[in-house]
C-alpha cells in the first residue's frame, strides 16, 4: 500500500469545511451514526474470523499439495509392488515402480497415474477456491471501511430526519463536522483504525496470491502437464475487478501489483518462478502462508479493543 495513491484513502474531515452542526442536528445524527458504526465494526469482526478460517483451509490444501509432491519425491526409486491401490499420495514413483502381477493388466500404469493426477487437481482446485474466498472477504472488508459515514438524507426542514450510508449530497461529509460519535472518536478516527487493519489484510492477500501461484505450479511433469499460471494471469474470472477495488491491480502495467511487506514498497523486479521446487522452498512457502507476516495480530486485537471500549461492545 503506497500511501500516496490509494483511491480509498479515508477522507479527512479537514478536506471539507462543514460548518459545525447545530446541537439539534447532532442529537439526531448521533444515534444513527452509532448504530451504523456498531454494525460496520461487527461486520469487520466477523470478516476477520472468516479470513482466519479461509486462510487455514487454504493452508491445509497447500499442505496437501506439498505433501503429495514430496512423497512422490522421497519414494522415487523405491521398488514397491502391488501398491496401486493406495492411490493417495504416490505419483512420482509410478515410473520406477514395479507393478508385479498387476503389470499384466492393460494400461495399469496409465490408469493409476491419471487417477493420481485427478487427486492433485482436486487439491489445486480447493486451494484456488480458498484464495477466491479470501479475496471476497478482503473486498467486503474494504467496502465496510467505506461505509462508516452517516449522511443526512432529504431536506433539512423535514420534521423527520432520515439518514443514509451512501453519499447523496456533496456538502455533507457524513461525520457531523467531526464530532465524537460515542465518547471521543470522530468517524474519521474510526475509519483510520479500520483502514489500518484492513491494509494488513490487503497486503497479506497479495502475498498469498504469490504463494497460490507457486503452489499451483507444483506438479509432476511425468504424470501430466499442468499449465502453470503466471503473475499477470487472472486466476479466476473477475479476479482483476476485485483486485483493482483493493488497489492491488495496476492499470499501468496491466497486471497485479507485486507483493510487498506492509509499509514497504513493492519490488519492481519480476516474479521468477522455478518449476522444480526444492523441499526447503516448499517448507518456506507453507511457513510464510502460516505466519501471515503482514498481519500484526496484537495490533488487530488492540484496534478491536479500542473500538469496542469506545462503543461498549465486546468483540473478543
Amino acid at each position: 500500500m503506497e500511501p500516496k495513491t490509494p483511491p480509498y484513502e479515508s477522507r479527512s474531515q479537514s478536506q471539507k469545511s462543514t460548518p459545525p452542526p447545530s446541537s439539534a442536528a447532532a442529537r439526531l445524527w448521533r444515534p444513527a451514526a452509532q448504530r451504523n458504526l456498531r454494525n460496520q465494526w461487527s461486520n469487520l469482526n466477523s470478516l476477520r474470523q472468516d479470513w482466519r478460517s479461509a486462510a487455514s483451509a487454504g493452508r491445509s490444501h497447500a499442505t496437501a499439495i506439498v505433501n503429495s509432491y514430496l512423497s512422490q519425491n522421497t519414494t522415487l526409486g523405491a521398488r514397491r509392488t502391488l501398491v496401486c491401490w493406495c492411490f493417495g499420495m504416490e505419483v512420482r514413483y509410478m515410473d520406477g515402480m514395479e507393478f508385479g502381477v498387476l503389470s499384466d493388466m492393460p494400461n495399469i500404469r496409465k490408469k493409476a497415474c491419471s487417477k493420481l493426477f485427478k487427486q492433485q487437481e482436486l487439491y489445486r482446485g480447493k486451494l484456488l477456491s480458498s484464495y477466491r474466498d479470501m479475496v471476497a472477504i478482503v473486498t467486503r472488508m474494504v467496502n465496510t471501511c467505506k461505509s462508516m459515514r452517516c449522511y443526512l438524507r432529504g431536506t433539512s426542514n423535514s420534521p423527520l430526519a432520515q439518514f443514509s450510508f451512501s453519499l447523496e449530497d456533496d456538502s455533507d461529509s457524513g461525520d457531523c463536522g467531526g464530532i465524537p460519535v460515542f465518547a471521543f472518536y470522530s468517524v474519521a478516527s474510526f475509519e483510520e483504525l479500520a483502514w489500518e487493519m484492513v491494509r494488513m489484510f490487503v497486503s497479506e492477500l497479495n502475498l498469498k496470491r504469490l504463494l497460490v501461484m507457486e503452489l499451483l505450479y507444483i506438479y509432476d511433469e511425468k504424470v501430466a502437464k499442468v499449465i502453470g499460471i503466471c503473475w499477470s494471469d487472472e486466476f479466476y474470472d473477475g479476479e482483476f475487478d476485485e483486485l483493482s477495488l483493493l488497489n492491488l491491480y495496476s492499470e499501468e502495467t496491466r497486471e497485479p501489483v507485486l507483493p510487498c511487506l506492509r509499509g514497504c514498497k513493492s519490488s519492481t523486479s519480476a516474479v521468477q518462478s522455478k518449476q522444480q521446487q526444492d523441499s526447503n522452498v516448499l517448507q518456506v512457502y507453507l511457513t510464510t502462508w502460516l505466519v501471515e507476516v503482514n498481519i500484526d495480530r496484537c495490533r488487530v486485537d488492540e484496534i478491536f479493543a479500542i473500538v469496542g471500549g469506545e462503543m461498549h461492545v465486546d468483540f473478543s
Partner: protein
Amino acid sequence: MESIVKKYQQKFRRVKDEMCRWDELQSRLISQFSNASSIIQRLQVIQDCRNYGALKCVEDIENAVLAKQMESLQTILLSINKTMEEFHGIVSSLEKIVRDSRQLVKAGSSQPTAKQLKQRVGVKPTLAECLDGLRLLEEMHQSEYLLKLSVVSALPALALKPSESGDLVALQQLLVDQPNIPREEVQFIYDIVFAEEIS
C-alpha cells in the same frame, strides 16, 4: 483402624483426581512442545534466503518470516512455563497429601507399632501399604516433574543451534514416555488399596 483405612482411601481418591489433572497437563505439554519443536526445526531453513524461491521478490521477507516465527516460539515457551507451574502445583498438593497422611496415623494414639502398621483386616490394605503407596505416587510425580523441567529448559538452547534438531525428537519422546510414572506400578498400588472394589 478401619476408619483410618477409609480415610486413606479418601486420600488415594484425591491423588487420583490430581493424576487426572496431570494427564490433562501432559497432553497440553506435548502439544506445546511439538509446536515449539516444529518451529525450531524450521528455523534453519527459513533463515536461508536461498530457500525463498519466488518470494525473493518481496524485500526483507526472510527477516519478517523469521521474526514472526521467533515471536510464536516465544509465546509457546511462555505457555510451556505456565504448564510447568501447574505441574508444580500438582506435585505440591501431592506432597501435602503425604504429609497429612503421616499425621493421620499419629493422630489417634502415639506412634503406631510395626504390628499395627502391618495388621490386615480382610481385603483391606494395611496402614503400611497405604503410607508407602502415597509416598511412592508422590515420589514418581516429583521426579517426573524434575525430568520434564530439565527437558523443557533445554528448548531455548536448542532454538539457538537448530542443527541438533534430532535431539528434539528424542526429548519429545522422553516427555511422552514419562519414565518415572510406570503405569503398571500405579495400577498395582490402586489394586491393593481398593482391593475390595475389584469384582
